[in-house]
């Protein structure tokens, strides 16, 4: 097992370097550069000034040399410096990462739990009205544009009812500590996490339902029934566990995308996360920062691929030995 993990990590490192190289060229293909953007913001700049900035940022070197410098840094666990924000990229990312992870993990867990639960419920009552209701609701969640739902949620719960804070990570300036702070953050989390979770909840629900129905047709379920097991036990022990295999795959895929997957939600809810950081970095052509975010995101994806595989081995004995 350990050897398996080490092998996979080694492979992942190589893939990561390839990915970063591709990303590097991708990002540099975009028009404009950070020097022009920064000069622009100063409200005045001549060509000489901009050239001076470029030199400072190392943008005057040939692209391949820049790539070499960047990759060398990455190999030494240095993601470079953001000249625009005047901070090391790693620090900028680490500052934002917790907020994003909190948001996306919460949404992830909510959607996974509620989605599979609803899916199981619907599959147990397939054809009945509760199945129709759950399925329709899921379809609705799936089809509603995320940002629209987000705006509506803010209007409803934040402005009209004033129940929940509509934006931000915590009550700024309240200086809560300990439990009070956790509760405060929790309140801020509700709206964004729910809106973000809706879509995936729908996806998990549908997948679970379909998978449960599929598995329930398999022969071993008939065997279980022939043993005289109660249908609740059959559902849980036989159908559910087997039906979860594809869901685990999907969940692994989603978990990997958690880092950058919440641009819209973070924007609407003023959530100080990585998604927004990435969007801003892109707008300002903050190359190092953008690459850094991509790096972290790619690393997350690869990590979660690995975790999924390990999990799979855990769930499915067939893979464990093969």
């Amino acid at each position, binding site marked *: 097992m350990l050897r398996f993990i080490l092998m996979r990590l080694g492979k992942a490192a190589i893939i990561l370097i390839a990915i970063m190289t591709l990303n590097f060229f991708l990002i540099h293909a975009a028009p404009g550069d950070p020097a022009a953007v920064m000069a622009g913001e100063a409200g005045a700049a001549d060509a000489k000034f901009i050239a001076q900035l470029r030199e400072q940022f190392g943008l005057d070197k040939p692209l391949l040399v820049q790539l070499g410098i960047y990759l060398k840094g990455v190999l030494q666990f240095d993601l470079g410096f953001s000249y625009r924000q005047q901070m090391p990229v790693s620090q900028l990312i680490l500052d934002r990462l917790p907020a994003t992870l909190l948001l996306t993990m919460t949404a992830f867990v909510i959607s996974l739990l509620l989605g599979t639960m609803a899916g199981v419920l619907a599959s147990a009552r397939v054809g009945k009205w509760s199945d129709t209701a759950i399925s329709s609701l899921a379809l609705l969640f799936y089809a509603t544009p995320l940002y*629209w739902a987000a705006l509506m949620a803010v209007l409803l719960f934040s402005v009209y009812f004033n129940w929940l804070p509509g934006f931000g990570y915590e009550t700024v300036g309240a200086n809560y500590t300990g439990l009070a702070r956790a509760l405060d953050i929790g309140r801020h989390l509700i709206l964004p996490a729910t809106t973000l979770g809706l879509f995936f909840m729908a996806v998990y629900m549908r997948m679970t339902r379909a998978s449960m129905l599929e598995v329930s047709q398999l022969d071993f379920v008939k065997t279980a029934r022939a043993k005289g097991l109660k249908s609740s036990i059959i559902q849980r022990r036989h159908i559910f566990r087997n039906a979860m295999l594809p869901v685990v795959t999907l969940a692994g895929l989603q978990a990997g995308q958690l880092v*950058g*997957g919440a641009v819209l939600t973070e924007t609407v809810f003023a959530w100080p996360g990585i998604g927004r950081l990435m969007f801003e970095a892109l707008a300002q052509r903050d190359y190092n920062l953008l690459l850094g975010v991509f790096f972290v995101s790619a690393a997350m994806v690869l990590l979660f691929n690995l975790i999924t595989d390990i999990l799979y081995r855990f769930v499915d004995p067939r893979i464990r030995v093969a």
Partner: protein
Amino acid sequence: MADFWKRFSRNRGAVIGIIILAIVVLVAVLAPLLFPQSPWRMVQRPFLPPLAMEQYPLGTDALGRNVISGLAYGAQVSLLVGLVSTVAALLIGIPIGALAGYFGGWVDDALMRFTEFFQTVPSFALAIVLVAIFEPSIQSIIAAIAIVSWPPVARLVRGEVMSLRSREYVEAAILSGQTNLTIILRQVLPNTLSPIIVLASLMVATAILLESSLSFLGLGDPNMMSWGYMIGAARTVIRQAWWLSFFPGVAILLTVLALNLIGEGLNDALNPRLARRGK
């Protein structure tokens, strides 16, 4: 085929989906006849509420443009984006998946690593980057959506092809002297069609949502009236003019819903195991 339609039409949801989609398509096609004036034209005072004037049943927007005309023309763009990007994604994903699945070995390995790359950057983020690089225009948006949505196609096709590859009829085709290309095209791919069709119907829906999300972030084609654009533009005035985001929102919702229902209907109709049940 007739059998298929019979099965399909047994699914009430799918029929509703088809009807909704037909209406949307009709509106999109007939938009220039229904509303001869450009949807960008400022025709009345801004923020005219719905039903206030007969000619403008859904009101006007922040510049006094006719909302219902925008919806009709928006249907064109949204459907165009949805369909073309899906077709493009299929055109990329199917060959890659088919080659990887059919030949296996290092071909498979290389193609799958390549596919993985597109999945390491979150798809929405990648779409944003691509649109920013190529500058927002209908072509670049379609391209970006296609580029971020083909990997699942490739994976699906690969899986299907791998399982079909060892089917006896494929081996029979090999023995009968057909070339690999013929076998892939004639024996293998046609049999992966049903899961692809089902996936495609969902991808059209996702593409419409993706375009609208891009538009929302200001990365839409400024010369094209789309539903996403309408919602994005209405965001800032959501408080004084609810109808500006409501109607396009509902339009997106209905279309996506319709495509989903159709997809599910196809899924059921094409699934032999489910075919026998349900009336």
